[in-house]
């Protein structure tokens, strides 16, 4: 029975192979059906696995070794899969949200000529993502880790005729690779330290280490470098906003709901190692909170509907890392789940808007779409409310839990996290108001063309909206009369770590005050946004008209891309070019050629001795003979 876990990732792979090789011969309907079916069946299996685990709490993990993958000397990394509460939860998110997005894509991509190719890539992505969460050692995780990076590359650059899009794809891949190198070095250090890369062995042996040992901190930090790349944290986040070049379902699936949370999965999976290293945890927390705040600020000034959502994703991922950093692993995973619901919802709704606007993404040219797109409007409202953290929508519970844990751990974290969440609420409502309220600001043609999306797109939206509404109740906290079902479910994975990390629970009264305070601030922020964008009908200025220097800096994303280009890319190119010219061809090859020439030149000198005078030759001969006699008689 347990060996059948491989079917969960295998089905999407089969879908990818069918669509990839024979997709051209299939009709679009069949192609889409295969794509959806592959993920749908996989979702069914994931549900079965989930309930199997839930009804049999005594089985903590199910794992199966299929074959030796890489084996050399003492090193061995079998191809083996592992199912436990953590991976089963991720399976549900990936296949569930993935399935909805596949259905949505059949509508969204309907007119694209590469329809089958799109589904092949999407299925391949799901395959690698499932491998990532199902692997039972770090190397299989790395396979998924890089595989999703590849699919991300393929899908960001899906419209490959546009060279800017393919540049964005390349940038995403390269920046991910920077992180991957850190991850890989972490894996090496794990192998050197523990003699194995299997989770079971590593975590068992890690228990014998004391807190904050250098090796453990190194492992944790190196792995975290990988997470920083994949989950778009400071300083490697710049690829994610550019990744919006891909089709919108891709942004929803890969760059919001699943792939970018791989970093959180990895840290949560390695919770035993991280718990052993408070230093590494504080690094995680600081990077998380810094990213959350930084990306939220950039999000304030963006005018591209997808870019705003992209920065919001970066910011939300920052929250998840903050949760991990304070040791609240369950809260991080909780936020992954709720974020998957509402962010996928927001992206897909944005896709619906873009679809209706014939590809326009600039919110300055939208406005007043409420009437034309009623379903999209309402689901967008639900998404916005959920991300802003208004009860009882999903985002409230998970975000509040993170804030509470941050407060318990360090008041400064809490303060920054609160500010960040207020900024989030502001830019999300700004987006909502600018897009759906007021008057239409686009061209006449666009206005004429406005239409609600087809059923294949709205149904997934509605399902996601329902999930965003009620999703939070899986982690209903005790103070609100719940029992936190999620926490109980994940207990086998996190029990040891969280006990160590969260000793000081804050009292219920403090928690009520915090919730009240947060909600009060939120109300103020939303009112400000309403005042500015609905009552005053303020519209962001055109690029050229931005006067305030602060606004300019934020609008240009703090010039981080330009900074990287000028500090890393250009000097590297310059250096390489100069090296090629002067060192490679001038110096090294110069030496080689010099050796050759010096032989020629030396011969040219030596032959001058052959001056043709017979007397001289004879003289030289006699001298030579005398010398020979002299040296042989020594």
């Amino acid at each position, binding site marked *: 029975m347990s060996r059948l876990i491989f079917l969960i990732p295998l089905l999407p792979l089969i879908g990818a192979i069918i669509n990839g090789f024979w997709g051209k011969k299939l009709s679009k309907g069949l192609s889409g059906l295969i794509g959806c079916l592959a993920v749908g069946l996989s979702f069914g299996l994931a549900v079965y696995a989930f309930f199997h685990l839930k009804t049999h709490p005594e089985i903590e993990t199910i794992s199966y070794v299929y074959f030796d993958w890489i084996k050399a000397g003492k090193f061995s990394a079998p191809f083996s899969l592992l199912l436990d509460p953590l991976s089963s939860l991720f399976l549900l998110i990936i296949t569930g949200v993935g399935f909805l997005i596949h259905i949505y894509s059949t509508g969204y991509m309907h007119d694209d000529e590469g329809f089958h190719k799109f589904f092949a890539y999407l299925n391949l992505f799901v395959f690698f993502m499932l491998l990532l969460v199902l692997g039972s050692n770090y190397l299989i995780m790395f396979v998924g880790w890089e595989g999703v990076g590849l699919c991300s590359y393929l899908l960001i650059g899906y419209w490959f005729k546009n060279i800017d899009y393919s540049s964005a794809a390349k940038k995403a891949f390269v920046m991910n690779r920077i992180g991957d190198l850190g991850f890989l070095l972490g894996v090496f250090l794990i192998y050197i330290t523990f003699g194995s890369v299997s989770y079971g062995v590593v975590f068992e042996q890690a228990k014998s280490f004391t807190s904050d040992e250098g090796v453990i901190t190194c492992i944790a930090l190196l792995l975290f470098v990988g997470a920083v790349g994949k989950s778009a944290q400071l300083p490697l986040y710049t690829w994610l906003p550019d990744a919006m070049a891909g089709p919108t379902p891709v942004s929803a699936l890969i760059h919001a709901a699943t792939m970018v949370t791989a970093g959180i999965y990895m840290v949560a999976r390695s919770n035993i190692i991280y718990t052993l290293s408070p230093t590494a945890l504080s690094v995680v927390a600081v990077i998380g909170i810094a990213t959350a705040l930084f990306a939220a600020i950039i999000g304030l000034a963006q005018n591209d509907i997808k870019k705003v959502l992209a920065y919001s994703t970066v910011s939300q991922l920052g929250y998840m890392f903050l949760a991990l950093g304070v040791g609240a692993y369950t809260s991080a995973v909780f936020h992954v789940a709720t974020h998957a619901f509402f962010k996928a919802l927001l992206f897909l709704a944005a896709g619906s808007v873009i679809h209706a606007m014939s590809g326009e993404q600039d919110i300055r040219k939208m406005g007043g779409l409420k009437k034309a797109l009623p379903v999209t409007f309402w689901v967008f409202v639900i998404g916005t409310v959920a991300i802003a953290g208004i009860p009882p929508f999903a985002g409230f519970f998970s975000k509040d839990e993170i804030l509470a844990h941050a407060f318990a751990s360090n008041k400064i974290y809490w303060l920054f996290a609160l500010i960040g969440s207020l900024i989030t609420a502001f830019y999300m409502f700004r987006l909502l108001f600018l897009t759906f309220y007021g008057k239409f600001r686009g061209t006449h043609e666009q206005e004429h063309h406005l239409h609600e999306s087809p059923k294949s797109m709205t149904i997934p939206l509605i399902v996601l909206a329902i999930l965003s509404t009620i999703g939070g109740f899986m982690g209903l906290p005790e103070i609100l009369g719940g029992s936190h079902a999620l926490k109980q479910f994940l207990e086998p994975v996190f029990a040891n770590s969280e006990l160590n990390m969260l000793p000081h629970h804050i009292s219920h009264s403090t928690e009520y005050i915090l919730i009240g305070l947060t909600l009060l601030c939120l109300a103020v922020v939303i009112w400000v946004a309403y005042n500015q964008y609905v009552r005053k009908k303020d519209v962001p200025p055109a690029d050229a008209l931005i006067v305030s220097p602060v606004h300019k800096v934020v609008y240009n994303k703090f010039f981080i891309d330009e900074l990287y280009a000028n500090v890393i890319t250009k000097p590297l190119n310059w250096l390489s070019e100069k090296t090629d010219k002067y060192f490679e061809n001038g110096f090294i090859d110069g030496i080689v050629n010099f050796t050759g020439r010096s032989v020629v030149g030396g011969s040219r000198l030596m032959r001058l001795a*052959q*001056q*043709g*005078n*017979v*007397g001289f030759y004879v003289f030289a001969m*006699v001298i030579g003979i005398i010398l020979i006699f002299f040296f042989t008689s020594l």
Partner: protein
Amino acid sequence: MNIFQVIPLNHYIFLSALLFCIGVTGVLFRRNAIIIFMSIELMLNAVNLMLAAFSTYLADGAGQVFVFFIMVVAAAEVAVGLAILMMIYRNTNSTDINVLNKLKW
């Protein structure tokens, strides 16, 4: 006691060394090809003398066989060498070896 051994071996050695040195000097410092040629012959004969002397003193005939070899070779050499000299003279109207410096770089 052999008649040749009346003269001590040292005298033969000194004489032939002297002859050899004269030959070498002649080869080194004269520019006339014919004189150089004669100096070479002188050196050969110095060696011949030495071989003959040792052959007698050691009562070993092998040395005298060498002498005959050298004589034969020297005769052949004279035949070829003088022919070359004749050609040189016809071409350059001189037997000065310093004129013969065409064979250089």
